[in-house]
């Protein structure tokens, strides 16, 4: 097991290395020049050239790449071209809102989705099953930003129950913190609920058709116990896999949700950086996102051993 974890961690480094090369080349070979954006609309070619030289963007690509990689290897993600602040500092300022949004979304989505999935499988073919599946299809089909605007319109503009936008750090009180996360979490979580609920239902239906479930029912085991103890645990592997895959979906959704609800998280940071061509920020964030994604998948793989003792690495 330990050897497996070490092997996987080593492969994480390799994956991040490949991501680093890919992201660097993608950014630097695609059109866009931060110097031209910094200089402003009224600037001349001469002024733009001066800024480009000062930023070191005139150097050959391999030189720029090795400068960046050697700094990253020393734990330095670089300095933002526009704000002149260290990228690590900018990311650390933005990590709390993103983590808060991701964790509340995951918690709410997994709780609701698994419940819905189990319920739909239990009542398969009934109006409850059909209704839950219709809702899940809708949740998966409607874009995050549409859900976001609709929620803002109803709950913030009309009913005035919740704020439109922004983020309140948890150290300024749990009340304001949760108040500003409710709508974004619902908007972001809807697609996630739909995805997990459908997989849970399918997986549960498969398990509920197994002999040992029939035996449990014949023995007179309570339905709740059959569903949650016998069936759900055995249906868990595909559900956990989808939750892991869904982290990528979540990362993409976080970017849009943070924009719609004006949450100053890492997603907003990278979107703004892309429009400005702030290379060090984009490179730093994508590197971290890729690392997180690889690690989440490692955790998912390891969790299989808890759900199914037959699985060994």
């Amino acid at each position, binding site marked *: 097991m330990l050897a497996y974890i070490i092997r996987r961690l080593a492969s994480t480094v390799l994956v991040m290395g490949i991501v680093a090369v890919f992201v660097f080349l993608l950014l630097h070979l695609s059109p866009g020049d931060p110097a031209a954006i*910094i200089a402003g609309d*009224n600037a001349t070619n001469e002024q733009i050239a001066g800024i480009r030289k000062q930023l070191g963007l005139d150097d050959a690509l391999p030189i720029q790449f090795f400068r960046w990689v050697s700094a990253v290897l020393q734990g330095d993600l670089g300095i933002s071209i526009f704000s002149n602040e260290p990228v690590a500092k900018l990311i650390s300022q933005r990590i709390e809102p993103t983590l808060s949004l991701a964790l509340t979304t995951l918690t709410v989505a997994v709780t609701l989705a698994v419940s819905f999935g189990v319920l739909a499988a239990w009542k398969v073919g009934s109006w409850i099953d059909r209704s839950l599946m219709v809702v899940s299809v809708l949740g998966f089909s409607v874009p995050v930003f549409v859900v976001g605007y609709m929620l803002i319109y109803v709950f913030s503009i009309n009913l005035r129950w919740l704020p439109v936008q922004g983020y309140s750090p948890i150290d300024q009180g749990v009340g304001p913190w949760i108040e500003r996360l409710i709508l974004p979490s619902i908007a972001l979580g809807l697609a996630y609920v739909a995805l997990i609920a459908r997989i849970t239902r399918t997986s549960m239906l498969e398990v509920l058709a197994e002999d040992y479930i029939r035996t449990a029912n014949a023995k007179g085991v309570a339905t709740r116990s059959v569903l949650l103890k016998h069936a759900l645990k055995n249906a868990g592997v595909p559900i956990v896999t989808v939750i892991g895959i869904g982290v990528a979906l979540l990362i993409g959704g976080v970017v849009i949700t943070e*924009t719609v609800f004006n949450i100053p998280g890492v997603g907003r940071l990278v979107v703004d950086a892309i429009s400005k061509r702030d290379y060090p920020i984009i490179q730093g964030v994508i590197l971290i996102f890729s690392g997180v994604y690889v690690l989440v998948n490692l955790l998912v793989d390891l969790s299989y051993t808890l759900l199914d003792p037959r699985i060994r690495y």
Partner: protein
Amino acid sequence: MTTRRSILKGGLAAAALTSAPSVIGAKAQPSAARTVKAVMHADLRVLDPIWTTANISAYHGAMVYDTLFGLDGDFKPQPQMVTKWGLSDDKLTYTFELRDGLKFHDDAAVTAADCVASVRRWAARAAAGQSMMQRVKDTPVVDDKTFRIVLTEPYGLVIDSLSTISTSLCYMMRKKDAETDPNQQVRDTIGSGPFLYNRDETRPGNRHVYDRNPNYHPRSEPASAMAGGKVVKLDRVTFENIADEQTALSALQAGEIDFYEVPPQDLIDDLKKDKNLTVEVLNKTGHVAFMRLNSLHPPFNKPDARKAMLYLAKQDDVMRAIFGQTSKSWQACGSYFACGTPMTNDENTEWFKHGQDIAKAKELFAKAGYDGKPVVVLQATDHYLANPAGLFAAQWLRQAGINVDLAAMDWGALVTRRASKKPPAEGGWNIFSTTVTGITFADPISFTGQAANGEKAWFGWPTNELQEQLRNKWATAPTLEGRQAIAKDLQKNGWDYVPHVILGQFYRNSTWRKNITGVIGMPEVVGFWNMEKGVSG
């Protein structure tokens, strides 16, 4: 025994400990009643307003720094940091004396040496300053409060240049900051202006925080644009970066923000019906939308082809696409200097009075020897003007029988590609569209797009010797009347050699909560002095 519950408890305890120092260290915040939260037209990215020509950096500059002179509401320069100034009889020496009590935010007095260094750094970057500096022999410091600008020849635009409201504005910095290489960004944000930049509370990309400068001594005259007393009646102003227009608008309607500089312009009529909001145009000179033509490559290396574009462009179409069918927030304009400005005139505008004429354009393209090669039109799909303007330009050109390559991209890519002098087929371009504020467009010196000195000119790089002679003549004309007369010649020549084609002049409405009063209108900058926040709303 370690259980999941104990791990969870440990995690919660750790989270509580992590957040504890912030709670303990929390500082008293200015009350919401004296804080204005504003969403501006762009996110502030560069804090050095001399290094960049970006308008949002000029806004930041107006908060933090002060100017020697300021333009008033009638576009007349008025002393601001200066108390007295004079011009020698031979019109070669300007002498300036600073007001008493001027202090930087670090408590150091503002001296003449600071101002000389600031003027010199600004002049190295700004078009108006560069033109002035070509005639400056020396800038001696007389004493702590007095300095001079000594010219080699009389130059009527010295005071106008120092009070320019076109980016970059001539902001006064500390000598040690102003001595930074003009090609490098000043790191500190210590000015002597009405607001202090609160770096601790600022979160780049999210919020920029400005606190009232308690040591600022405003002039006694009433505030008027960049002139008069900049009396701060708020404790704090924050520039909130809300990238999504719909979210910003919802936040304004819900009272979460107080001021929204550029709301979606097609919704202005609806906003005017909201009893909680004031909707007003702050920049009365508006913005000019124009299509820049690349004079280096065919077909627009021929004046006839450029002139053909005058007959193709239909300003009404572009403006209606942006502002809606019923909006009165724009006008078609034929002046080379924006309409409603001191240099506006009617010379050589037959094309404008005539209106769109596809046949005439075809004839001019044929005369220019158009060879059928695709004309590359840059279209920034994320830009409110460059997107529809690109589409319309392509359509007009096709109607005139021109092959078009409509290159779709984002604005970031457009500003890079427009700097390329390569042939259009090799990554260059023929046409791009952008906007400039009316007051800048009206100034043959400050607007770099008015230069026609070939490879050194603004993108498009036109060459026209007469234009350069007239610009020089305009700059040295001693009176406004003299400059207005030369402006006619400039316009006559301009619409003959056609460096760009106007797509309309428009006036963007700003909106704010009804409890905000004392908002000062001016071109290029939004000032937060004089502004008050009432209790209701």
